[in-house]
């Protein structure tokens, strides 16, 4: 008996990192899960690796698609519902930011890209998912924020602004659908060494005047545990929020940051 038996989940991103760990946790708890990414090759690889853990391949699907477009988000969310027959859980997980700089030097393109990748993708996915969830009067939406959705650091304003915006969207949506059996929450994790972090971290560090190792240390040192978080830390909170037990939690920004955020 899993905590998500019979549920269908859609995870944007999800071939690696936090989304992948969450997909595996949802599958462990009995859900059927669609994961997403731009690269069909990475998708096939993820499916093969997941199958190798003993998961029934019928319970997991890869949907290629670019979350930086409305069409991409709609096809990922609607594709999940079409394939598995319903949609219970959306984890709008994809995101990141490139071309960091202090505000004074920031390009419009960098801000635009971060807002599309993080915020617009979350909006498009959420809106599409709500159209499935509102008529069935049940659902769980989990958005990917960050400790940077609550606080700010110099030179990464494109990320900080987008994650704050996601938290605002989450709070409003939660109020809209609270009586319909649908919860909307965000997860606010501390730094985790995911693939995205390995790719985007070094240039972000450079914009902040730090080496990559120093950047990771800044995040570790601002926590109480003096270390980075794990992908499993976030995945397990997502299981809780997605489960029946999470019915009373909505509009919340759950900190999974080793004690970094002050609120």
């Amino acid at each position, binding site marked *: 008996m899993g905590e998500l038996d019979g549920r269908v989940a859609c995870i944007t991103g999800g071939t690696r990192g936090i989304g992948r760990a969450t997909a595996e946790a949802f599958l462990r708890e009995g859900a059927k899960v669609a994961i997403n990414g731009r690269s069909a090759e990475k998708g096939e690889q993820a499916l093969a690796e997941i199958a190798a853990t003993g998961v029934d391949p019928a319970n997991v699907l890869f949907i290629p698609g670019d979350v930086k477009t409305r069409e991409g988000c709609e096809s990922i969310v609607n594709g999940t519902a079409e394939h598995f027959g319903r949609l219970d859980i959306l984890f709008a997980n994809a995101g990141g930011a490139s071309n960091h700089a202090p505000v004074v030097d920031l390009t419009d393109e960098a801000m635009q890209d971060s807002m599309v990748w993080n915020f617009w993708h979350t909006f498009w996915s959420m809106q599409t998912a709500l159209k499935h969830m509102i008529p069935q009067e049940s659902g769980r939406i989990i958005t990917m924020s960050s400790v940077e959705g609550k606080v700010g650091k110099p030179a990464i304003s494109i990320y900080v602004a987008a994650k704050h915006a996601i938290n605002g969207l989450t709070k409003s949506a939660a109020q809209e659908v609270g009586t319909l059996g649908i919860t909307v929450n965000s997860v606010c994790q501390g730094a985790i060494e995911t693939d995205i972090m390995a790719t985007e971290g070094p240039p972000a560090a450079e914009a902040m005047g730090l080496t990559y190792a120093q950047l990771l240390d800044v995040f570790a040192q601002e926590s*109480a545990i003096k270390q980075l978080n794990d992908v499993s830390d976030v995945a397990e*909170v997502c299981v809780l929020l997605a489960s029946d*037990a999470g019915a*009373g*939690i909505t509009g919340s920004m*759950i*900190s999974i*940051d080793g004690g970094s955020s002050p609120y």
Partner: protein
Amino acid sequence: MGKLDGKVACITGGTRSIGRAMAEAFVAEGGKVVVNGRDAEKGAQCLAEMGAGDNADFFAGDASKQEAVEGLIDFTIERYGQLDICCLNSGGVQNTAPVAQMSDDEWQLEIDWNLNHVFWGMRRALQHMIPRESGRVIVTSSVEGKLGKPGIPGYAATKHAVNGLVKAAAQEVGTLGITVNAILPGLIETDIVRATGPDSAVAMGLGGYDDLIDMFSQESALKRPNKVEEVAAVALFLASAAAKNMTGCMFPVDGGTMPY
């Protein structure tokens, strides 16, 4: 395989309502639990209803008294050999009033019950957990730990204070394998709320108990009170290995009431 196999917990105020739901959730996952309350009769009834045999025990004592709180922790360690999870859950108000009418006695009671009890329990528990470099402290705070309502100034003040205590303690023991977190429930119709709610409603300028329930419900997104099981599920999560890297967290279980 339970999520708390081999773990030992104590819970202040655990014979009914939220604490009782925590106790049942912990035992169902393989934990051993000592619950606490003032009334030995209710304690015996609780143990009988739980039917957990040797995996549950009761320690009688008033959670607003230092010797009772420390006694619960010492008893748990003596009874089961260790303490892994300390739930400081008891709390409430008795004769609340607006600040201008608040009595010294009520103020002191709320400070002792809601704040000092948590400090006494946390201190004693950490003295045991720090040498073992492992432990979980879980404090039942409240939505009123972030907000404030008229007529319950002591409750709001003590729950705010408890949140500060949790944040500071989390920073102190973060590298020692010990997490310290608060759960912030919205209104739940517990025994305490049913007993003291009617008087509290009057102090808050409301018509009666139903208006109190309605006020809290309407400020949430769910438009209903929360449930004890919803808090217990979060307590179980925070107590489990899955939450090893969550600390200093104010975990809301309030149906979308708090803005932050």
